[in-house]
């Protein structure tokens, strides 16, 4: 990294998107988007529907291949990393339209979250060797800590298909936390939650940031929540960056106002 002219020490960068572009046929869903997430912050992407926010997430979790540009995580270029490696590198995510394992219990869902930390192989599993047992117990201990944090004890053994929407959202958050991430991607965590649930969520995001020291990259529409938890906000529209800065600053930005209200 080149030292800056004014001598100010540059803050570390956890995740950097550099001129990120993806093209679906003739449509540029994300066009030359650059931003940098610093360790320990809550960074929020806002923007109207179809702005390309979720597409940015899908690029970072490598579900889509970038057409142009780079993604750098912890100094490592992850633009070509296969998608199943992303979790082990320390990036976990939730989905806008809940993607839980419907026919499994809450506990099993969280244990799947531990998969990227798993070190057993098929042969030892067939015989369920003491090593496998030790690892299972270790997974359980870590998962229980997250169950305690998000107060999911009551639902531990319930099948996802029987749970109400708000709880499913929390289970998804818990499953992402089970992977022991460094960076957590939350895609509209408050959508469909009522006011109290959203308040709880705000507290948990604070806890995740302050106690677990996990950096959060979030997409959210609820501006009350965004203002309360975000350190910095990025506004997008039609695949392009409109503005970046503090929550209040971005909300006042003339381009952002125009994007939401029309000129």
């Amino acid at each position: 990294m080149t030292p800056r002219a004014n001598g100010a020490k540059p803050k570390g960068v956890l995740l950097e998107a550099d001129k990120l572009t993806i093209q679906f046929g003739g449509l540029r869903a994300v066009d030359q988007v650059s931003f940098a997430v610093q360790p320990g912050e809550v960074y929020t992407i806002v923007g109207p529907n179809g702005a390309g926010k979720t597409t940015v997430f899908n690029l970072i979790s490598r579900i889509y291949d970038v057409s142009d540009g780079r993604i750098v995580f912890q100094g490592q270029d992850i633009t070509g990393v296969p998608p199943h490696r992303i979790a082990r590198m320390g990036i976990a995510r939730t989905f806008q339209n809940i993607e839980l394992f419907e026919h499994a219990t809450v506990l099993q869902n969280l244990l799947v979250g531990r998969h990227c930390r798993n070190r057993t192989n098929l042969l030892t599993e067939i015989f369920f060797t003491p090593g496998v047992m030790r690892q299972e117990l270790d997974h359980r201990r870590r998962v229980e800590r997250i169950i305690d944090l998000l107060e999911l004890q009551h639902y531990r053994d319930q099948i996802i298909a029987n749970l109400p929407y708000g709880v499913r959202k929390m289970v998804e958050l818990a499953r992402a936390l089970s992977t022991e991430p460094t960076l957590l991607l939350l895609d509209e965590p408050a959508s469909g939650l009522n006011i109290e649930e959203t308040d709880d969520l705000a507290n948990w995001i604070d806890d995740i940031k302050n106690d677990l020291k996990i950096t959060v990259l979030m997409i959210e529409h609820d501006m009350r929540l965004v203002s309360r938890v975000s350190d910095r906000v990025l506004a997008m529209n039609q695949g392009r960056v409109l503005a970046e800065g503090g929550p209040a600053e971005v909300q006042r930005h003339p381009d952002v106002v125009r994007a939401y209200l029309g000129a």
Partner: protein
Amino acid sequence: MRNIFKTSYVQDIRLFEHGGHVFWYALLLIGVFAAPLAVSEFFVGEMSLVFIYAVAGIGLMILTGYTGLASLGHAAFLGIGAYAHVYFVKLGIPFPFALVMAGAVSAAFGIAFALPALRMTGIYLAIATLAFAVIMEQVFSHWTSVTGGFRGLPVTKPNIFGWQTTTETHLYYVCLVVLILVTLGTRNILRSATGRAMMAIRDSEISAQSMGIHIARTKVTSFGLSTFITGIAGALLAHKLQFISPEAFDLILSISLLLMIVVGGLGSLHGCFYGAIVVAFLPQFLALVKDVLPPSIGQIPGLQGGVFGLVLVLFILLEPYGIYGRWRKVRLFFEIFPLYRRATFKRQRGYLKTERMR
């Protein structure tokens, strides 16, 4: 109702949830080990068929019930296992090794098939497996130097390290031991990471991938395991039938296997056993009923296939979770009597899944 007070994580991980289970399963085990003393040789033979079907059912259950990949061609893998096993036994390889090698050959075919075929899902994969089964049937009939073609191959009774088995009862115990080992191994896989990865893929590939699961590798593993176990079942079936020919491994057998796991209950190992009992005894039952029915109904050709199909359709419509699902409802009814309500097992409204990525 039993309330379990959990004091350690091991309680959730171990094979039996509580002492009650240990007691009932032990009783069942004693029962099946003692059964040949009490029942006729014919019935013992039918029971071994149940065990063999159950092994094959576990194989298919791993693939269809747990990984969510349908196969309409599993009879082909039974066939591969059977022919490979007979071939190895002829070479003089001891029975237990020949059994495992037959499974390995079947798994090799399964993996070789899966590598290109697993780009497909759902109905397309089912059709691909069907095509594979048709091809294998041709191979069985025309590769006469190994398979004996349409004339078939006679199969001797297993010889286990010098112990020459002679009766149906001997074979019964061989099948029982294999079934127990396969069940335990499968249970172990299902309660560890690989099993959870399979279930994750069944429910949502996209988030399984985001949790660090290698989708293609897990699917191939599932296919390999499934065809290995099915191959072993095929080897046992060869001994049971004492004669193998290509017609033994036709489409009807594939459908019977599918019927078995659907009727038993998809996504549960118990289902394999219930299903195996139904599939093994339904033809016997039909043979009995045939004599009672008026000839105009009882003598219809293809009655058995029709009844199998009807049972399959009725289960899918009325009890998608199979016999095991029904049993759980009945058990819950008594456990929480009189609080059970019709809606207890009703699924909640499915939440809208727009923009769902597949």
